[in-house]
């Protein structure tokens, strides 16, 4: 195809967008709504994935030291923990450090802690070499003299991972259904546009235009509608997510992914999906009218 012809198709494609203003609006709206929902699903799943990574990284054993253990015997206790089989690292967290961390986590609500003194015990954070051995290691840790109790959140993690997997599977099915619906909507709206332009196509064929030539502007038009239909929800999601990140304080192990990371990923997917939907929709619909 000559460059001149590509130029013509592009010009025509743009012109058609405006000439069929209302149909363009309908199509772009259909794409936008579909992609908005898709975008929400993507942002959710990105953050859920991040959450599960956070949780897995925090697969650790918190061993709380009995208050009766004097500070002088803490190094010895640390050594005996370190000597246990399957232990990777042991880190000491003093009552004071623990309190400070809690204050940080509570942020503006840190005042709640005032007047309570320090209710937190000294603590060893034990990491197992193999995360799957966390339970066994935790039992060993608990039976060590001087350790009052252990927490390793295994139950929580198991349940949590089950829920995450289920949510992710459901999201994938949901997204596929959405995409199919979106393509259906677009091809339908474009079909209506093309129906009103049937005469145009008929005349093009009668003066000797090839099918490829006739498809050209529709191809461009579909692409443009797809991109437009992706940028609108992209912008909405960007603003919404930015607002969410700045106004909601997440609590561990939850944390928001950065706005730029999320929007980069989401927008790329939305634009690709939009272009795919637009081109697919327009080509499928134009095919029927090429048989003159």
């Amino acid at each position, binding site marked *: 195809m000559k460059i*001149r012809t590509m130029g*013509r198709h592009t010009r025509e494609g743009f012109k058609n967008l405006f000439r069929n203003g209302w149909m363009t609006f309908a199509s772009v709206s259909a794409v936008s709504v579909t992609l908005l929902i898709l975008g929400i699903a993507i942002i959710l799943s990105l953050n859920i994935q991040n959450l599960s990574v956070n949780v897995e990284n925090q697969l650790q054993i918190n061993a709380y030291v009995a208050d009766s253990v004097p500070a002088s015997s803490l190094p010895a206790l640390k050594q005996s923990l370190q000597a246990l089989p399957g232990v990777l690292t042991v880190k000491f967290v003093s009552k004071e450090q623990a309190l400070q961390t809690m204050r940080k986590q509570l942020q503006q609500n840190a005042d709640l802690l005032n007047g309570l003194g320090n209710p937190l015990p000294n603590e060893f954070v034990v990491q197992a070499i193999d995360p799957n051995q966390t339970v066994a290691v935790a039992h060993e840790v608990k039976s060590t003299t001087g350790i009052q109790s252990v927490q390793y959140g295994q139950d929580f993690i198991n349940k949590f991972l089950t829920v995450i997997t289920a949510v992710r599977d459901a999201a994938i099915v949901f997204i596929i259904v959405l995409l199919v619906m979106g393509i259906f909507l677009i091809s339908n709206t474009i079909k209506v546009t093309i129906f009103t332009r049937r*005469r145009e196509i*008929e*005349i*093009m064929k009668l003066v*000797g235009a*090839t*099918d490829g030539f006739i498809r050209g502007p529709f191809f461009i038009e579909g692409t443009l509608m797809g991109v437009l239909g992706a940028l609108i929800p992209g912008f909405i999601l960007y603003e919404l997510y930015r607002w969410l990140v700045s106004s909601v304080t997440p609590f561990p192990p939850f944390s928001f992914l950065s706005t730029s990371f999320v929007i980069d990923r989401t927008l790329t997917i939305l634009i690709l999906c939009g272009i795919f939907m637009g081109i697919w929709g327009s080509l499928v619909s134009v095919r029927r009218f090429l048989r003159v």
Partner: protein
Amino acid sequence: MIEMQDVWKEYGNGVAALSGISVQIKQGDFVFVVGPSGAGKSTFIKLMYREERPTKGHIFVGGFNIEKLRERQIPIMRRHIGAVFQDYKLLPKLTVAENIAFALEVIEASRRMINRRVAEVLELVGLSDKGKMFPRELSGGEQQRIGVARALVNKPSVIIADEPTGNLDPENSWAILKLFERVNDQGTTIVMATHNRELVNACKKRVIAIENGQIVRDQERGEYGYED
């Protein structure tokens, strides 16, 4: 130029539009196709630019074997044929000049060549000053002249016209006919299906009469021969 050998056309509903037509039209001929409504004139015309396919028989148009034409070759074949229609078939959203240029754009002609040819044919049909107007701003006769201009812009070897004067008053009908005669004088074959008795009788051209899907008369310097 155009040759049909024992051509039959049956539509899906079993109606036989043409039953064994054989005809030869030479380069530079001017042929009127006449006959009552529903006799098969339109089918005869449509077969020539492959809007319809024959059920049986052979059709050759300017070196193309129509029944063996591949889907991809149809556009190429049509570029050698100028088609003129009763309802003009102009694109309402394009200007007059754009409508004509359109037939050249599809063959990827250069902008310069397009501008030159459009100006030439506009002058030929006597509408040089209307290039920037839209079809709805023109009279029926003017619109049909644009239709003829578009058909001519590719320098086709044959013009096929289906009732080109069907919607026009006598004066405009004559204008279209004069145009065809001028083009014919330069060697372009003209095949024109028509109901216009005055035109046919005044011109003394070859007349092919079709009735019930068959050629019942084919005379040089013929008459219209019907009373409608």
